[in-house]
């Protein structure tokens, strides 16, 4: 029963949500499946909240252990746990709306700490793109050589200097992007879409059950 119950719930819930998006009542009034689907979405939020609780307990246990055992970098764990507590307390008080100070502090914490840190991480991509391009474009194989030549042609086509060198570079670049690139992307996309559907079906029918753990 430990495995059957989740499989039955998955199938029933999946069918309700699926058909709620396909069928409706003949007179245009609210269809019962739609109402059930909306109710299920609310349950998802509640279950997700419990999952956040479990995940937070995991964070506290791992990093609490790091601090008590004074493992290398334990102060990072301390900073993390302090940040969680501060954000949770400030966010909760601001949510209650009883303090103007906390109402201002809450968005400021986000705008002044999380947003710039996220932006910094995102900005690192520029450097990583350069280093990965260098490794990928080294002419170690026929494929890498083709990729290198295509990349050079596209860069020359997109950069103004390319058109100054030879007026045909933008045309070649556009052709490479519109024909071979689009063909390849669409082929992968169609295969992935059908694969995604078949995987969803396997999960709904209980065939793919690795996510439940244990032997099949």
């Amino acid at each position, binding site marked *: 029963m430990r495995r059957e119950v989740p499989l039955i719930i998955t199938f029933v819930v999946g069918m309700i949500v699926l058909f709620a998006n396909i069928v409706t009542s003949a007179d245009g009034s609210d269809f019962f499946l739609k109402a059930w689907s909306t109710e299920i979405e609310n349950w998802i939020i509640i279950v997700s909240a419990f999952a*956040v609780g479990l995940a937070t307990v995991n964070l506290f246990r791992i990093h609490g252990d790091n601090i008590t055992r004074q493992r290398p970098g334990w102060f990072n764990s301390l900073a993390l746990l302090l940040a969680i507590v501060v954000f949770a307390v400030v966010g909760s008080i601001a949510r209650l709306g009883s303090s103007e100070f906390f109402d201002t502090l809450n968005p400021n914490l986000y705008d002044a700490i999380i947003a710039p*840190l996220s932006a910094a991480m995102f900005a690192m*991509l520029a450097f990583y793109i350069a280093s990965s391009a260098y490794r990928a474009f080294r002419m170690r194989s026929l494929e890498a050589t083709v990729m290198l030549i295509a990349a050079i042609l596209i860069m020359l086509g997109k950069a103004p200097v390319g058109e100054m060198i030879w007026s045909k570079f933008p045309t070649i670049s556009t052709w490479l992007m519109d024909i071979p690139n689009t063909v390849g992307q669409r082929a992968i996309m169609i295969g*992935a879409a059908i*694969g995604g559907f078949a995987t969803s079906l396997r999960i709904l029918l209980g065939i793919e059950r690795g996510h439940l753990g*244990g032997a099949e």
Partner: protein
Amino acid sequence: MMIIAGRVTLLVTILLLGVIVVAGINMSKSGKWTPKIRRLAGLDAVEEAVGRATEMGAPVHFSPGIGGITDQIAPQTFAGLEVLRYVTELTAKYNTEIIVTIRQPTVFPLAQEIVRQGYITAGRPDMFQEDTVQFLSSEQFAYAAGVLGIFNRRKVAANIMMGAFWAESLLFAEGGAQVGAIQVAGTASMAQLPFFVAACDYCLLGEELYAAGAYLSQDKVKLGSIGAQDIAKAITMVILLVGSLLATAEIDALANLLKK
């Protein structure tokens, strides 16, 4: 009860694909048809990666992506979790540590259960530790920073990434390359595929990720559904070809039919 306008094709497609997949599964189960999956170097390389980590005495890192389990990219997450089970059993076999990092809280209990059960199946329940599966953060780049930190502190020898990824894909792939990890990635996220192809040692493209569970288990039922997928793909190709010819002849009958 009636079908919502514009959803008829969707319903017919779902039913048709459903029938094909179920028929494929039944034929495979009865032994009338045993589909074969071509060699997937990316999945064959997983054992090599775990073996290398064992030789180096360093841990294996696994990420099931940053997608959830209730949205449209959920199949990628589930496909990633299928691979996680296999990787866990391999690490148990080789007595190598695995670190699973999680971004989505809803994926966390699933991953924890998979790893715990994987160790039990392999006869090594003692290998499961509190920090084997780690929830890092639900913020995308905080999670990315956490993963990069683990790469550098623990000097992971193998980095396996299977699931839905966004902008953090290149951060992981390059971060892994910088610590010298052998890297195997798989995703159906179109925009991230080029990054994985460029920066990883092995890469599963699109549908290959969804076939991973069947390929690794060689389970007849799963193989049947993968074979059925190919039939669905062939039908799609025929529709594309006919549609292209009709559109060239300025006949929009098929296009109008599919819009219903």
